[in-house]
């Protein structure tokens, strides 16, 4: 790995069942790979952000903050996961506001999918946030989970561009040696070309060290 790559999609162990390494380990892995910066996007919260920020500061790595938020689909009754990166102080405030609104609304022991940000809330607090198009559970996943209903990916990206403005939406590509993922990547690249979206390569990191 060289200094030209920055990992912008990482989950820590604070994302339960989604991540396995503590923020300090992730920073250590970034340091070993000579990365100048890293971003932590925990699921539905910024739980790992303080430790990630402190570890980054200690090791001279710029720690970017963000979160993966569950968003209800504006076109159907399903949900998708939207990775959001904080761009500015206002963005951090908006991200925290979105998380608070979502958490306050749902019951204590929410069922999967109950805890989600509504499209209107997202549109209201989108300023200062950078949106990535995510991976298999993101807004551009070809088939929705369970319903097998095909989502109009182009319509979805247009909606994201409308919410976050052009320049703040990145077509995310991940590669995990997975046939279905590669097919999705091809479609995302095609869509990005049509809508002139910048491409962003990430790894969707879940652990700092191999098993």
């Amino acid at each position, binding site marked *: 790995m060289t200094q030209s790559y920055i990992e912008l999609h990482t989950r820590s162990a604070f994302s339960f069942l989604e991540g396995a390494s503590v923020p300090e380990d992730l920073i250590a892995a970034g340091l070993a790979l000579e990365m100048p910066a890293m971003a932590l996007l925990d699921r539905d919260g910024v739980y790992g952000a303080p430790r990630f920020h402190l570890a980054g500061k200690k090791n001279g790595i710029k720690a970017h903050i963000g979160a993966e938020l569950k968003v209800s689909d504006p076109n159907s009754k399903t949900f998708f996961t939207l990775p959001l990166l904080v761009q500015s102080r206002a963005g951090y405030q908006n991200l925290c506001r979105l998380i608070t609104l979502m958490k306050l609304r749902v019951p204590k022991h929410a069922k999967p999918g109950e805890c989600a940000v509504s499209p209107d809330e997202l549109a209201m607090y989108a300023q200062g946030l950078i949106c990535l198009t995510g991976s298999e559970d993101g807004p551009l996943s070809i088939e929705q989970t369970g319903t097998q209903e095909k989502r109009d990916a182009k319509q979805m990206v247009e909606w994201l561009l409308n919410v976050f403005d052009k320049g703040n939406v990145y077509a995310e590509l991940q590669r*995990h*040696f*997975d*046939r279905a993922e*590669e097919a999705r990547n091809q479609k995302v690249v095609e869509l990005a070309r049509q809508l002139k979206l910048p491409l962003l390569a990430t790894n969707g990191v879940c652990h700092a060290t191999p098993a």
Partner: protein
Amino acid sequence: MFACIFTPSLPSDVSLVDFGYAFSPLLEETSKDTVVIDVEGCELLFGSAYGLANELSLRAVTSKAAGGLESKVNVALAANPDTAIHAARFFKGVSFISPGEEITGLGDLPIESLCFELVSIDDQKNHVREDILETLKLWGIRTFREFATLPTAGVSERLGQAGVKLQQLAGGKTQRHLKLHQTPPVFENSIELEFPLAELEPLSFILSRLLNQLCAKLNAYALATNELQVQMKLEKGASYERKLTLPYAMRDHKVFLKLLLLDTEMHPPPAAIVALSLKCEPVKPRVTQNGLFIPLAPEPEKLELTLARLAKLLGESNIGSPELLDTHRPDAFRIKRFTLRQLNKKRAGKASRSSMTPLSAEPVVAFRVFRPPLRALVEAVRGYPTQISAWNVNRSVHGKIVQTAGPWRTTGDWWRTDSWARDEWDVTVESRPEKRGNISQPLQVLYRIYRELRSGTWFVEGIYD
């Protein structure tokens, strides 16, 4: 006329039911300490109904060896079973209530003694009993007679149907049949042989006889079976057991016989048979309704026989229908027992609708799997395959790899000994040029190849159409 036998202190090792059966085959086991017998027709044996009651009372105190209970019993004779039960429970010794004089006999009993469980009131709800008794107490009703003489219409208005039933019970006016006690049938037949059997043919005659009796019994009870157990006692004290599990409930002895014989041929006992026992698990018979628009399936009995014959020819593990396993392991399946799928009307409708759904507009590439996969020699440059050479007796793959896509990595079951890890590639192989007229055109074919990561061996998995 009915006789009720009640004993408050029944020894644990004796059965009141067995004692009652010594006097009449028509017997109801009301509770553990109470049985009622129908004494109609017993006059020829015991002189009169009263003579029978006396005999019951006298024999009860005799020893167990003499057919007694070794305890005193109350015996009551009455025209209906419920009156007899009340009298036996609350009058000591032998009591006789003449027909029409029930109210005279039971009238002085306290109202709390009324057996609510004899009428069909939900006895799980204890508060019903308490509520009714409290109401009667408030009305000043203390005895059976007082309750029985109340106007029925008024009781019905205030206590409902339950109250009317209880009033009839208190007046000894209920009419019902005995709920006859029946011993559960045993579907088992056994035979001890005079000389050891070592051949299949004589065994078939014995099995046929046993199965005939068993199926006749199943038929008599309108039952069938889906499990047959054969227990064989062999020479030198050994035993041998076979269990035949059927996917459908049947009771055709000829089918059973053929299935058992085929099974015995496949799994012969290690020694000669000296005793044989056949047991079956009774279940409700299969009920099917054929539809006009549902295609006829083969008869299950014939299908089972055919499958058993095929299993004998090919081996049990080589017959059945493939079932995909819930795993990411490529090409993982198992052979399960073949059964006919029973579609009900709704499902059949759904199935036909789903089969009529239009196909997706997107083109689908067909993939032909090589079973077993073709072992290959692959040259790779920096991990990317560049040249392939694979062959077996049926097919061969040779040539330069001109295009690749991959690798697609799958791993799994790493905690087991049969774990797998492999990298899949889709490759375009350019083989020797094919001459078409004067133009020679290279032939390009798309294959899926994979490399076992543990052994580093390459295989050709299949070809794309």
